[in-house]
Structure formats: structure tokens, C-alpha cells
């Protein structure tokens, strides 16, 4: 609201002449008693009684003015969207699972790790829940330790905090003992530990220990608990359940095989929350699931996508009465349990009225029969490029270079789905790939054409398989490699993984292969053509892949010939950084920025990984995803060049154009190959193919496509 010039309390306040008679509304309120009442209430913070006196009306009238003003839309109460989303999710979780309460932390604040934010939220919940005289049971875990670290309560008396399970080795920070102690310290409570191991060697030891008077007494305290706070662990391969060593791996497999979906306080439950029986059950010292469910207030604090099935299981099983989680996990739980109404409400509230659909229902394409696109493309391609390639026998899905394979040379076989043209077919020729196996759109070729390629490419010195790292391609090429090896052709495989946005650096092997394929193929083809051995070819190709860095940005989705509809949607003002060449989601979707700012984001990411120093040499590829024209690619290249030259990094060679596309997607990728002398030499090695021809070795390698 606008600044006011003077307080209405001091300004011209009229006197009442009758019950509803307002003799003089200050001019600035435009003769509208609703606005006046609202201003006094919301802006000046007056009580309804004070407003009644000021306006000269009854308190009841003021009350109805305020209510009507909201109805009429004179007053809109808005809550920050992220907070509103959290609140909506919390309400829905509470309703759907019949919880006593639910606290959901927003996900927009990514400055702090999730565990810390959950810990703070869990602490906030506990500080409201725990009362003097309570007995609070505490289960172990990273999140619960974080709760303890954040916990602050008012002065409480006679609170007992009791460990919910036995102890573990102190090889990690969040042991049951430490977690319980942290919570007890924060509340200044009496701390009761269970002085027995959480898991003992046998059922017999278990029985004996529980008969010990001391432990018996500790369990008595535990059985008196009227509150409990616990985390929930998933059984996913990277969960703390595996890494903490709390459980032995062999029994874990047993529980997994019996359908365990999650772990609470050391006990296993299935996806419906039913206990899963197993070999650890009568060797585990700690609270039982039955005891847990009997406790009055059961606060679960957990978040993260991998925990969704485990959390859902715990909620379905009725183990939770108060849930503390984050917005994305909360929404995931609801969606996983079939609550779909939430999505509509969230987007409606966050985005307001739905933006007009900017997408055509059908995209125009040059087609005969949509089911024949791959065959018809290959007919045309083979005719157009017959100087460089030909089918292996009659098989169009396996093409071999005319002057490629020769005796004593390592063969290079590449391949993958179609829709990326000129990748992969354009890179077949002398000095490049010897053969290419071709699949359906965005879909790996089967092993048969790959084997045909291997046989056609083999010159007796072995064959390299080089292709992008995708589950389907890996399986088909692996099967083909098995068959080729049986036929006496040694096969080495290099998966391209240049898309640095597709996975963090710790998971480098899990990354996708995208436009950087171009550099890896070029280096591999040159190595093979130079007569290097299979080992040498493999090593240098691996090096090229390790030193190639790509980041893509998508502006608009691609559309498949069969559907002629956009595969997914990118909002009218948005772009997606890191999107893959089949439309795989990238690292972030954000509002589109200037070309220079986009290149800067990409280059910053590349510089973070590429350890290039002043004086180093690189090769640059600015690649269109299909629909983005050369004009825009040159604008991108301009900034790439500026960024590199500012670091005094020399561009040894560059390519700007369509090198690895995604049908008609709008967008582009930038690939940088960090050269050394061997890679530079191989990059300049001559080659002749439909898309890339390099004639003179040793000179400037720039070769427009």
C-alpha cells in the first residue's frame, strides 16, 4: 500500500452521528468505509474497538466491514509462495494421513543442507511438544542428531530423555548415545542411555542382557516414554543404513528380499508399514515397533527423495503422529500415495491463472509415413553420402565407411539412436569411424547391427566401441561385444560421458554422453587411422573423453515424428540448463537470460572442472540442438571466445553448427576439449566424412561443418 501522509488517528476523524452514519470519511479513502476500516486495521494496527470509535460506528459493523473487504477482494492476504506451498503440503499430509500435526520446511532455501534445515524444524516442533514431566525417547540418526543440535526449549522440569535403542560403534558421529545426549543436554533433562549394544550376537545374549537389572531398569524408563522422536531410513544403496555399519550387510539383503521399505529405530517395515520379520529381530535391543506405536506423541523427522517409500510406509503403518519433512519430499509422499489434487492447487496458487498455452497442438514436419522416418532418412542419407559410406550387406541399420576398415588397423564402431543427426551417421569415413549402428529415434540399436558393424570394421587388430552412456545403449553394445568376442574380435568399449551437468563430478562415470561425442570420435578415429594398437587407441580415446566438457541449454522441447507434439514443456519465459539430448531434465530450470549470461553460466561450470591454465589449448564446439540457427550460435561463440581469451587459453580449432541434435529442439550446447600435444595432433589428423573433413595436417584445424 502507498505511504500515508498522516495517521488517521490524528487526521480528520469524524464523530458518529448515528449507528451507521459516517459523517465524514477522510477524503483519501475515496468515500469507501471498507477501505477506511481496512486501512486502520491492517496498516495502522488499531483494534476493532478503536476503529469503531474512530469511524463512529459499532464494533459489529467494523467486524463486518473487515470480513466483507476480504470477500470483495479489497484486501488480499498473500503468503510468500514457497511458504504457502509448504503450508498446503503440510495441511494435506495432516489430512491424508490423519496426523496430529505436520511441519514442512520450504525447499527454496538451498543455502543450507537439508539435514540442517530438517534438524532446525524438528527442534522447533519438539520445543512446542515437550512439556515438564515428560519422558522423551530418542532414536539415533543424522537428522535426529541435527534436531538435538538445534534444540532450545523454555525452562522445563523433570524431563527424562531416554535412548530408544542400544548403542553402536562410534565410527560415525550420530550414534544412539550421542544423539540422545545432544537432545538431553538441550532440554537440560535427565539422560538415560541403554547400556547394551543395539545388535547382539545371538538371541540368547539378547535374553541375558535384558535380564540384567540395570538394562531392565533402562527399559522400564523407555516403556514409560510418552513422546518419541525418530528418523526414518530408506534401504536405498546409499542410505546411512548401509554406510553406518549399524546393520550387517547379509541380514540387510534378507530384509530387502522380504520387501522391507524402511527402517525406524532399527526395525524393518514393508511398504504398507507392516513389520518385516528377519534374522536380526530377536538380536536387536531397543524399542519394538509395537511399543513405538503405543507412544502418545510420535515425531518423525526425515526428508529426501530416496526416503519417500520409507516415509510412506511409516505413515501408512501409523508410526507417525507428527511429521517434520521438506516440501519436495512431502509433495512426493502425497503423489506416491495417489493424491493428485495437490499439484493443481500448488501450481494454481503459485502461478496464478494458467499461462495461455503457447504450444501448438501439432508441430509441422516433412513426413510421408511417420513410422517410416528412420528408413526413409537412411535411404536419402545413403544416397547423399555414398562417397563415404555404404550399408553392410543389405542392412541399412549398419553402415560402413568406404575407405575405412583395412587390415592391421583397429576398427572404430560408433552408434546410437536416431534423431541426433548428423550424429552418429555423419562421422563415418576414412580417418573417423569405420562403421555405425543405427537405432530407432532416441533408442539404441539392437545387438545384431552392432555385431555386423564390428565384423565390417575389424581389420584383425581389434575394435573400439565408442558410444554415449545410456542404459539401453550399454546393454545392446555389451551383448554385441559378447557375440563379437565369441567370433574372435577383441572389443574395447569407451562410454562417452561429457555432459558435466548430468551428474556431479563424484559420479563422473554416471554422466551422459552428448555433443562432446564429436571430439571423442575424432580422436579415436585418428588414433585408429594412425595404426596405433588397440591398447593405445583405447587409452587416448579415454583421455579425450575425460578432457571433454559439455553443458547444454534447452529453450524449447523437441517433438517426435509419430506424435508431432512437444515431448515436454518449457515455460514461455524459461530455459533449462543442462538438459540432455533426449530432453532429460537438467540441473535447473530458470528464466531465460541474455546470451552472454547463459554462456557465462556454462563456461563457469566448465572452468570449475577443467583445470586449464593460461597458455593451454582447447578445441571448441558450439552445437545447435536442431532448431537454433547459426546466427545465435555465433553469438554464443563470440562470448565463449571472450571468456577463453580472458584466461589466455588458446582456441586451437573450433566448430560452430549442427553436430549433435535432438530433433527440432531449440537450444545449444558448448563443448570444450582440453588439448594436450597428443590430442592436438590427433585432432588435426586428416579425415573424410560427410560432416567433417580435415585435409592438411598440422595447420589450423578449423573446419566449418
Amino acid at each position: 500500500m502507498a505511504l500515508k501522509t498522516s495517521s488517521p488517528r490524528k487526521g480528520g476523524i469524524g464523530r458518529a452521528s448515528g449507528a451507521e452514519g459516517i459523517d465524514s470519511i477522510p477524503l483519501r479513502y475515496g468515500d469507501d468505509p471498507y477501505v477506511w476500516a481496512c486501512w486502520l486495521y491492517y496498516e495502522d494496527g488499531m483494534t476493532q474497538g478503536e476503529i469503531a470509535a474512530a469511524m463512529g460506528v459499532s464494533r459489529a459493523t467494523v467486524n463486518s466491514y473487515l470480513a466483507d473487504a476480504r470477500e470483495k477482494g479489497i484486501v488480499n492476504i498473500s503468503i510468500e509462495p514457497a511458504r504457502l506451498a509448504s503450508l498446503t503440503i503440510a495441511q494435506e499430509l495432516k489430512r491424508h494421513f490423519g496426523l496430529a500435526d505436520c511441519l514442512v520446511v520450504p525447499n527454496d532455501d538451498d543455502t543450507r543442507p537439508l539435514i540442517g534445515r530438517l534438524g532446525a524444524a524438528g527442534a522447533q516442533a519438539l520445543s512446542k511438544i515437550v512439556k515438564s514431566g515428560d519422558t522423551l525417547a530418542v532414536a539415533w540418526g543424522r537428522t535426529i542428531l541435527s534436531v538435538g543440535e538445534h534444540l532450545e526449549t523454555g525452562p522445563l522440569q523433570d524431563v527424562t530423555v531416554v535412548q530408544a535403542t542400544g548403542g553402536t560403534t562410534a565410527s560415525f558421529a550420530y550414534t544412539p548415545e550421542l544423539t540422545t545426549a545432544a537432545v538431553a543436554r538441550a532440554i537440560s533433562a535427565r539422560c538415560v542411555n541403554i547400556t547394551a549394544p543395539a545388535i547382539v550376537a545371538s538371541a540368547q545374549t539378547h535374553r541375558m542382557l535384558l535380564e540384567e537389572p540395570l538394562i531392565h531398569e533402562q527399559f522400564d524408563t523407555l516403556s514409560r516414554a510418552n513422546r518419541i522422536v525418530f528418523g526414518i531410513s530408506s534401504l536405498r544403496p546409499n542410505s546411512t543404513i548401509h554406510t553406518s555399519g549399524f546393520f550387517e550387510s547379509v541380514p540387510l539383503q534378507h530384509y530387502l528380499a522380504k520387501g522391507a521399505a524402511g527402517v525406524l529405530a532399527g526395525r524393518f517395515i514393508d511398504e504398507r508399514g507392516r513389520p518385516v520379520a528377519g534374522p536380526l529381530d530377536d538380536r536387536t535391543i531397543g524399542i519394538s515397533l509395537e511399543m513405538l506405536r503405543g507412544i502418545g506423541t510420535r515425531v518423525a523427522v526425515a526428508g529426501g527423495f530416496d526416503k519417500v517409500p520409507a516415509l510412506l510406509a511409516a505413515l501408512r503403518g501409523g508410526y507417525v503422529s507428527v511429521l517434520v519433512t521438506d516440501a519436495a519430499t512431502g509433495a512426493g509422499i502425497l503423489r506416491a500415495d495417489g493424491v493428485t489434487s495437490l499439484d493443481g492447487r500448488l501450481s494454481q496458487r503459485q502461478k496464478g491463472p494458467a499461462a495461455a498455452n503457447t504450444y501448438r497442438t501439432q508441430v509441422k514436419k516433412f513426413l510421408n509415413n511417420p513410422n517410416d522416418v528412420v528408413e526413409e532418412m537412411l535411404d536419402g542419407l545413403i544416397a547423399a553420402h555414398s562417397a563415404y559410406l555404404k550399408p553392410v550387406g543389405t542392412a541399412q541399420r549398419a553402415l560402413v565407411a568406404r575407405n575405412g576398415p583395412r587390415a592391421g588397423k583397429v576398427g572404430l564402431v560408433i552408434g546410437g539412436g536416431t534423431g541426433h543427426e548428423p550424429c552418429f551417421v555423419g562421422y563415418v569415413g576414412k580417418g573417423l569411424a569405420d562403421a555405425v549402428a543405427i537405432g530407432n529415434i532416441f533408442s539404441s540399436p539392437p545387438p545384431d547391427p552392432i555385431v555386423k558393424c564390428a565384423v565390417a570394421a575389424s581389420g584383425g587388430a581389434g575394435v573400439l566401441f565408442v558410444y554415449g552412456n545410456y542404459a539401453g545403449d550399454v546393454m545392446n553394445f555389451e551383448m554385441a561385444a559378447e557375440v563379437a568376442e565369441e567370433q574372435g574380435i577383441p572389443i574395447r568399449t569407451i562410454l562417452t560421458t561429457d555432459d558435466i551437468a548430468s551428474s556431479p563430478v563424484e559420479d563422473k562415470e554416471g554422466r551422459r554422453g552428448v555433443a562432446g561425442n564429436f571430439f571423442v570420435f575424432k580422436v579415436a578415429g585418428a588414433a585408429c587411422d594412425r595404426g596405433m594398437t588397440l591398447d593405445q587407441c583405447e587409452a587416448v580415446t579415454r583421455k579425450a573423453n575425460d578432457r571433454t566438457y559439455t553443458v547444454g541449454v534447452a529453450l524449447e522441447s523437441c517433438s517426435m515424428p509419430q506424435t508431432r507434439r512437444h515431448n515436454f514443456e518449457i515455460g514461455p519465459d524459461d530455459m533449462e540448463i543442462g538438459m540432455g539430448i533426449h530432453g532429460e531434465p537438467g540441473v535447473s530450470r530458470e528464466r531465460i537470460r541474455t546470451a552472454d549470461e547463459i554462456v557465462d553460466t556454462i563456461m563457469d561450470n566448465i572452468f570449475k572442472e577443467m583445470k586449464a591454465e593460461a597458455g593451454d589449448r582447447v578445441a571448441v564446439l558450439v552445437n545447435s540442438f536442431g532448431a537454433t540457427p547459426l546466427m545465435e550460435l555465433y553469438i554464443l561463440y563470440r562470448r565463449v571466445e571472450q571468456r577463453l581469451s580472458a584466461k589466455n587459453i588458446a582456441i586451437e580449432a573450433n566448430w560452430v553448427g549442427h553436430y549433435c541434435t535432438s530433433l527440432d529442439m531449440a537450444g545449444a550446447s558448448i563443448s570444450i576439449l582440453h588439448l594436450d600435444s597428443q590430442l592436438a595432433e590427433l585432432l588435426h589428423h586428416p579425415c573424410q566424412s560427410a560432416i567433417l573433413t580435415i585435409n592438411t595436417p598440422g595447420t589450423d584445424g578449423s573446419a566449418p561443418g
Partner: protein
Amino acid sequence: MSENAARALARMFGRMSEMIEARKDTLSELDGAIGDGDHGITMSIGFKAVIAALGGLDLDKASPADVMSTAAAGFLDAVGASTGPLYATGFRRAAQALAGRDSLDLAACTDMLVAISDGIRDRGKAQRGDKTMLDVWLPAAEAAATALADGRSRQDFWKAITVAADNGAAATATMVATKGRAARLRERSLGHPDPGAASAAALVKAIAEAL
């Protein structure tokens, strides 16, 4: 006359193909939500190719293992992608498991289901809970083994298997994909059943009906 085991298996593949045809569009829609929307088409192409390949086999002379390995080769050559190697490996393992057998008693059926499930697991290097077809095949194979050990009737045996398969497929909606293309969606895959699991449940149903 009683039909020989090879004919029974060929009839089983026929039923599988029909089952996929009937669900082709539904499967593609499921895939559209978390994948590239072609799963129904891919499966349809694959099983049509299986039927075509089996057409070239003399079923009076063929063994059950022959039927399985022919189906594996037919499926693989037609499909590629990721379903191709997975089912081809599963069927090939089933061929090995059925080698030397000429009747499809419940023990043979159990071995076949376990072999398909093991083949898919080994090829895809996935595990339970990864939101894949394995979340159907593993429980189905386990249910078969349990039902066999408990000495269930043929009817109860197949009932237990289809129930396990259907539950497995339904459970994939609560999982986050970690394998295949849907893995790129992470939490966005939640709430959507996995299309590969859905088609697997349909295949198990077809097997149960045919055998």
C-alpha cells in the same frame, strides 16, 4: 490330445502378444509421463517379432528351450532400446533353464520365471526398488518358488504369482526411478507407476492364463 510343451509355450507367447496389444496405448501413456512415450509401441513390435520368429519353428519337433531361444532372438533383433536386451536375456536364460525338459509342470514353470527374472536382473544390473520391470519379475518368481514349495494347486500357484506381480507393479508408483531414462526425473517420477513394470505385470498375467 494333449498339446506338447513347445506348443504350450508358443501359445503363451501368443497370449503375451495379445495382452500387450490390448494395452499398447495405456503403456505408451504411462511412459509419456516419465519416459519418451514409446513403451507400448516397443513392446508391441517386440512380441509381434517373437510371434513371427516362432512361426518359422516346427513346433512338433521343437523343444521348449528352442521356443524360448527363438523368442529371445526374435525380440532382440526387433527392439534394441533397453527392453530388447532385458527380455532377450531373460528368455535366453529361460531356454537354458528348460533345456532337456519336455513338460511344463509347476517346477518347470517356476524355473522359467526365476530364469527370466535373473536374466533381467543380471543384464540391467538393477535391484528391487529401482522402479523397473524387476519390481514385478522378482516378486513373481519368488511367489512361484514359495507356492511350489508349499505344494499349492496349479490354480493357486498362478494366482499367487499374478497377485505378487500386480502388487509389485502398483508399488512402483511409490518409488523413485534410479535406472533407465526415468532416472533423470528423480522425484518427478513419483506417483507414476513404471511402464516397464506395468507391461511386465501384463506379461505375467498372460503367462498365468496360458499355462
